[in-house]
């Protein structure tokens, strides 16, 4: 029997891996992947807690919305990365520091 705790542990693991990636990776694409991981951890949480909702399958539906939104945001993010690359010829976030004082 898979309990809620197991889901939450997987979710926390995903979240932490995503967070680590966002903080440490030197490539914007990988950071984007990290963000996706964090998003998926949240979606997993939605699905896991959806079992306790009064309305049936509302968690799963909400997760579907979230996945769609994530796809959209990923598209936007990829477009941004593409534009950044065009301008700076790199996608290493450490190199892109024009906002520095």
């Amino acid at each position, binding site marked *: 029997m898979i309990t809620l705790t197991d889901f939450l542990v997987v979710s926390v693991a995903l979240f932490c891996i995503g967070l680590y990636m966002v903080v440490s990776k030197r490539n914007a694409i990988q950071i984007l992947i990290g963000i996706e991981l964090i998003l998926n951890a949240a979606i997993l949480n939605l699905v896991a807690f959806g079992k306790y909702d009064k309305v049936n399958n509302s968690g799963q539906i909400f997760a579907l919305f979230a996945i769609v939104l994530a796809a959209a945001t990923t598209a936007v993010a990829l477009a941004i990365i593409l534009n950044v690359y065009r301008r700076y010829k790199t996608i290493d976030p450490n190199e892109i520091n*024009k*906002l520095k004082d």
Partner: protein
Amino acid sequence: MDNFLHSIQSLNYTVAAVALPLLAALINFCMPVKSKAAGWISTIAILLSCILSAKVFATVWNHPQIHAQRIWFTIGQTQVYAGILLNNLSVLMLLLVSVIALPVHIYSTAYMKHDDRCSRYFTYLSFFCFSMLALVVIDSLVLFYAFWELVGFSSYLLIGFWFTKDKAVQANKKAFIMNRVGDIGLLSAIIILFAQFHTFDMDTIFAGKGLIAQAVIKNGLWAGPVSQIPAIWQYVACAGIFLAVAAKSAQFPLHTWLPDAMEGPTSVSALIHAATMVAAGVFLLGRVYPMFTEMELTILACIGCFTAFMAATIALTQNDLKRILAYSTISQLGFMILAMGVGAYASSLFHLATHAFFKCLLFLVAGIVIHQMQHIKDDNHLDIDPQDITHMGGLRKKLPVTFIAAVIGALALVGLPLTSGYLSKDGILIQAFEWSDGRNVWFKIIPVIALLTSWLTAFYVARLIFKVFFGEFRLLKTKPDVKLHLGDGNWPYTLPLILLAVCCLFPLFSFNPLSYERAWLFEGLRSSTHNTGESIYHSLVPISVNVISLLVLFTAYRIYAWESGFAFSQRGYFYRLSYNQWYIDNLYKRAIVNPVLRLGSACFWIDRTVVDGLLHLLARISGAIAKLAAWTDEYIVDGFLHLLAALVQSIGNFARKFQSGKVQYYLFSMLVIVLLLFILKILI
């Protein structure tokens, strides 16, 4: 009314006569130093002064005095007047000074022609004449003192005219300092007189019925019409006046500046000795004469007599032409002071006037002789003193006009009949004998010494004349190859000599060549109470003076002109006493000059070590304090500020690190903070 107009006119003439030399001095001062016109400007000014003075003299002489004054300034209740006082005494001096100055100016134009600073010379000379002319006509004691100082100052300039000569600088310093001693006396006398009489006006104080005549000394008090002060002040005032007279008129003990003053140009010596400088002292005595009491006059007579005798003995052995004449001046001034002391007021001033002419003449002669000797020295590159009479001799053939003038001047100085000197000097001697008659037998010493002095005078004058003008030219004996071309010089040299020589003869002063009492000058100055006594002295004194003088002259002629080989011993005590001028200079040097110099160097040492040392110590202390302050400023104050700055900078740098522009870093920081918040929340 007519009288009034006359006096106004006389006053205007007087002011013009006094101001003209000053104007000339100012013009010359503005001219370039080498200008040759300066001499003529000064000469014309003094010529005009002379004419104006003569007019004033003609108006005022033997007429009531003219006195004009106006308020000069007011202090509190005291009004101080200043003005012009013209009486017989002042117009006589006015005329005398300008008449003597005129030939000196003419002579100077030639004498100073080749000097580089000719224009400066005439500036000083005119200024000198101005000071003296103003001195004789002024009526206020304060202004009198001012001009007295100016006379001293301008003589200082002229004595030190050749200021590159060390001796000239020493001489003018000496003259100035010795005159300062007298000036202090005069100043204190003026202050005392003002304290007693509350006025500076000489006419009010010293006139016949003036304040001083009303003041009496009794019970140790000097009671005047205005106030009374202890009698001691009267003596102090008289001593002050005497000091002033002694300094200016070169009386013992302040006479030593006059022989040294010979370092100036000879024409200046002529002026100083005849009319301007030394006459000021006798003139002052004439002005303040009523002030002296019987006893003070006796002291005056003693000092005058001593000075006359001492100077005459010194003049016997000197070899410097000008120095002999200088000592003879001191001697004759001694006669004048003696005359004042014995009450022969008129004779004293009479002698001043006659002496002015013949002494001026003798100095101009000396100037010509020295000039010629200087030429010989320069032409032949000799190393001789041009003033030393032992080199001279036989000049009577080479310088005939000069010789005749010198003989006339010398005879007047000796006081032989038919000259002016006879009239004035014998007058003094006769009156000195008459004065001593009514007194203790000891008082006879004074006229006897005066008599002796006039014989000594005959000897030194004869020595001078015979050594310079008679015999052989001595320089040729020692240096036979010397080439000579001598001459009297052109008219600026001879004209003054002739003028003055004529003035040395009796007709200028009296138509009776034998009686001084008939001289107009004497009659104009003597007091009405003077009794023309017919004492035995009137015949005895002149005869004894002249007979013995003639004998002395003849002896001197035998000794010096024939060159008989006879010579006085030069080792005797008296010879050394006389040759070293009675050791008075040495005494002053030991007793006054050296202690003062030592005091000066002691003060210098104290100044250098103690005062300067203190200052240096102070400087060093403040330097150290400053260094400490600088160190404090640099390391403590600045250090604190630097610390603050560094602190702020490091905080800033620390804060800057967060603005690195690295997105992940921001994100990481946010994460850390959120985690920290959570941990804190759990802990608290």
